[in-house]
């Protein structure tokens, strides 16, 4: 009985806040997660964003270096599409804490991935030549036998 009144009051007190929520309605405990339209848009976009990279690689559309950059770009866009349309991420969900956790993870991902690749690249570039020569010599001898 008093629940609708409370909802009304809540909406009134945070008019701007609720307006930003848009169509998301709070049905008891069950917060609406997505609509048919959202899922359909997400699905069609992800099919397109998946089909193009596969087609590009399987039919050799571009030079390999170029293809790498383009398909990585497609993957990045598709991850965002999934986040928005399937995982329903936005700055407001869970009071903004979802986004905070996501940003922290993104920073950690960047450190782990770029750090590993950077360190290992320099290991290869700076330390491998001597070892390569050695092993190359060994291989050469091995081949001759």
């Amino acid at each position, binding site marked *: 009985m*008093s*629940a609708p*009144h*409370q909802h009304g*009051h*809540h909406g009134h*007190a*945070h008019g701007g*806040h609720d307006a930003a929520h848009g169509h998301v309605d*709070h*049905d*008891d*405990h*069950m*917060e*609406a*997660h*997505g*609509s*048919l339209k959202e*899922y*359909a848009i*997400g*699905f069609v976009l*992800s*099919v397109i964003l*998946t089909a193009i*990279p*596969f087609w590009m*690689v*399987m039919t050799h559309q571009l030079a*390999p270096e170029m*293809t*790498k950059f383009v*398909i*990585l770009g*497609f*993957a990045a866009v*598709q*991850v965002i599409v*999934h*986040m928005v349309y*399937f*995982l329903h991420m936005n700055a407001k969900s*869970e*009071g*903004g*804490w*979802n986004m905070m*956790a*996501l940003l*922290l*993870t993104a920073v*950690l*991902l960047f450190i*782990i*991935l770029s750090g*590993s*690749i950077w360190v*290992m690249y320099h290991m290869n570039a700076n330390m491998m030549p001597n070892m390569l020569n050695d092993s190359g010599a060994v291989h050469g001898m091995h081949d001759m036998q």
Partner: protein
Amino acid sequence: MSDTNVISAGAHGADASSRYYVTEHHPEQGTLLGFWLYLMSDCLIFACLFATYAVLGRNYAGGPSGAEIFDLPLVAVNTAFLLLSSITYGFAMLAAQRKAVGSVQLWLAITGVLGACFLGLELYEFQHLIHEGFGPWRSGFLTAFFSLVGTHGLHVTFGIVWLVTLMVQVGKHGVNAANYRRLSCLSMFWHFLDVIWIGVFTYVYLMGTLP
């Protein structure tokens, strides 16, 4: 404003939802935020496996390269299974919003079958590679490949177990608040696996076949 809410919360007594209106920034459902944090930690595990693959992915040790062993049409079919399972899970969530128990179970079942097809193809690929002598012991590249793709497959396996569990739960208790929360968590889990797969098919399979 907060006075009114406190009073109405008192009037409601044990109604948990009314308490959440007291402060503006309190998450509506702590469970979903907690589960999101779990997914982020899972994301870091996959980041480590991706970093390992980035470092070891070209260390063939005289074994086969990605271009020689990856079957792109097979991977494309696998990707299609996972993408389709994503939208069918979406349909299950839409049915859950209508509290249509039968419909929820049907879509969950279809999602589970698609997930099982994905796993079946992946196991076929693994079995084929191992049969050819290209198991994870063959080279650094194959170790990193089996670790990354295998960990993803393991997640899908547990997702299917969870999915079947929820089909039983929904059948027993209907789509109540607790079951809806569980379905929402599995929804995040399932779509998250799809996000990881985007990284796998792009970075491992597609870029691996390029010279």
